[in-house]
């Protein structure tokens, strides 16, 4: 027996045997019992990867009073859900959360573990990868697997300020880990008929052992969340000033979307930087994107060209934005945008004239 082990150890040097690592695991992120959209998006992608590998899709839910999220994870595609629910885990803190993650990873031995590339997801993934140790690819926007027998995760991410894409591989270590951007992958339709096993995990860390205290969380609900938005109405230099963003907001409200901007508009001070789409702003992948008075410079389009439907409005018929637009309108935005807002309101049966309150906001 010992001899046999010796042999496998020797063999490992050349060609590691990872046959005891199976399955894809998604670490679900939540705050106050509400999951981040990226978690369900990752379950959608994870489902596809697990099917290709003919293996299981696991979800890991950590928090306090989050049992409903374990069920939700099943609805969104997980085959089995690991749940660690304890008062000490109410707020995210690196040490206790990574302790739970490591415990589950050691127990389940997934071949792939994915996290949202959010502040919390990156904080946690960075700690765990070093502990294990294993390779971790940051901020991926494309995920695929090589079919068995290789089963390699092909984790691709933008490099050099989005100018290139690179596929990162981790051949000699398991699990293979990556964080993935929000808004890039599609969640599966929520299916309440999927009742899956929930496996409970104990939290081993006591409050006295945890140095960090979350004193307060100042939520910024007013802050736009472009990456999770399904509809974005973006404006550029063509708007000519801050006032016209009010017009865009009205269209966004009528559609149930949020307002985005090009860098030119942000640099001019017409709107704050958290609205900026593009290389030095947010990468977005909404279902519907309006580019209004935006020329379509590559630094802008890298951040939005994967939107499902793009509508461009520009008075210059040669503006490059039209090359990636599904619907192009050549004309004066000041005339066309109000007409569209009105037509949308009519179609949706919303009161014509300025809306008293927002109808949609961030629909993510």
């Amino acid at each position, binding site marked *: 027996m010992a001899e046999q082990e010796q042999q496998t150890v020797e063999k490992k040097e050349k060609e590691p045997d990872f046959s005891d690592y199976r399955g894809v695991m998604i670490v679900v992120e939540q705050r106050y019992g509400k999951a981040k959209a990226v978690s369900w998006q990752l379950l959608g992608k994870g489902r596809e990867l697990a099917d290709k590998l003919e293996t299981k899709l696991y979800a890991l839910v950590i928090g306090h009073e989050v049992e409903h999220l374990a069920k939700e994870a099943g609805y969104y595609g997980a085959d089995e859900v690991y749940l660690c629910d304890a008062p000490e885990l109410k707020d995210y803190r690196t040490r206790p959360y990574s302790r739970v993650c490591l415990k589950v990873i050691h127990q389940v031995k997934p071949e792939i573990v994915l996290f949202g590339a959010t*502040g919390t997801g990156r904080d946690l993934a960075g700690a765990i990868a070093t502990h294990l140790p294993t390779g971790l690819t940051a901020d991926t926007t494309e995920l695929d697997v090589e079919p068995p027998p290789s089963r390699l995760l092909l984790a691709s991410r933008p490099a050099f300020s989005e100018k290139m894409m690179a596929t990162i591989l981790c051949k000699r270590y398991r699990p293979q880990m990556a964080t993935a951007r929000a808004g890039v992958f599609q969640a599966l339709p929520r299916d309440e008929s999927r009742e899956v096993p929930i496996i409970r995990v104990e939290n081993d860390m006591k409050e006295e052992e945890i140095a960090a205290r979350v004193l307060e969380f100042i939520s910024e609900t007013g802050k736009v969340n472009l990456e999770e938005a399904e509809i974005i109405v973006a404006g550029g230099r063509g708007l000519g000033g801050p006032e016209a963003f009010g017009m865009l907001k009205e269209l966004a409200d009528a559609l149930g979307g949020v307002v985005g901007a090009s860098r030119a508009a942000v640099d001019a001070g017409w709107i704050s930087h958290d609205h900026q789409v593009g290389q030095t702003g947010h990468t977005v992948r909404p279902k519907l994107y309006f580019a209004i008075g935006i020329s379509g410079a590559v630094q802008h389009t890298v951040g939005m060209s994967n939107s499902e439907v793009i509508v461009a409005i520009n008075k210059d018929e040669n503006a490059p934005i039209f090359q990636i637009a599904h619907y192009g309108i050549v004309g004066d935005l000041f005339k066309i945008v109000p007409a569209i807002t009105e037509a949308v309101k009519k179609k949706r049966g919303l009161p014509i004239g300025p809306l008293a309150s927002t109808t949609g906001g961030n629909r993510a």
Partner: protein
Amino acid sequence: MHIVVCIKQVPDSREIRIDPKTNTLIRQGVPSIVNFYDKHGLEEALRIKDELGARVTVITMGPPPAEKALKECISLGADEGVLVTDRAFAGADTLATSYVLAKAIRKAEETWGPVDIVFCGKQTLDGDTGQVGPGIACRLDLEQLTYVGKVRKVDPQARRITVERHLEDGIEVVETSMPVLVTALKELNKIRRASLPGMIRAARYKPIVWTTADFPDLDRSQIGLKGSPTIVGKTWVPEVRKVDGERIAGDTPQQIAEQLVERLWSGDLPTRLGWN
């Protein structure tokens, strides 16, 4: 107090362009800079030094030209600059980098005393992962505070630190114990200019150089390319997806608008977007 700041010299990737003919990166003429998030880490260390008194040690792992980056930090007010350099360190990914930097921080502790705070940048312009900071914290068993936009309070007596972490959905105020590793955002502070005495000191300053020979217990299998689990496979230049879009025209804005709305409502988009 002893504060270590990890800095990296990086090509200013914002300036890198792609050769449209060969689809390769044009690196020529691209300036090297101190990764700007790291400078915010340094600035915060210097502020704590100004306020409470501290020794500030700057560490970088990189090729010999990175000495220039250390001198820049000296000119701003750092006490010492250490260049960790060796052929054997080349090709390191975040796991191998954090291994060597953790060793270097240990050695800095032996040399100048126990470390209370380690600052890293949120991420680098070239590696762009934000993983080295958490990696170091894990290896040195430090508390970890990432994405810090404000340091509210440092209490050297109680050995506690309170910060604001800037996250996508809001600001989290966290307090924890020192020693701690903090990763810096742009919002953390405004970077000072070098003073004249600082510049004079930097001009004369010779950074301290540590090579593999200075780390007797270094595990060779954990450094450089060999110690890096991730490898770069294929690289490519993303093509801008061109679509054969439809031009919508009409005699009046109202006609155009109605046609657009008709198109948008023709598929399953309204159902998926929850439009009534």
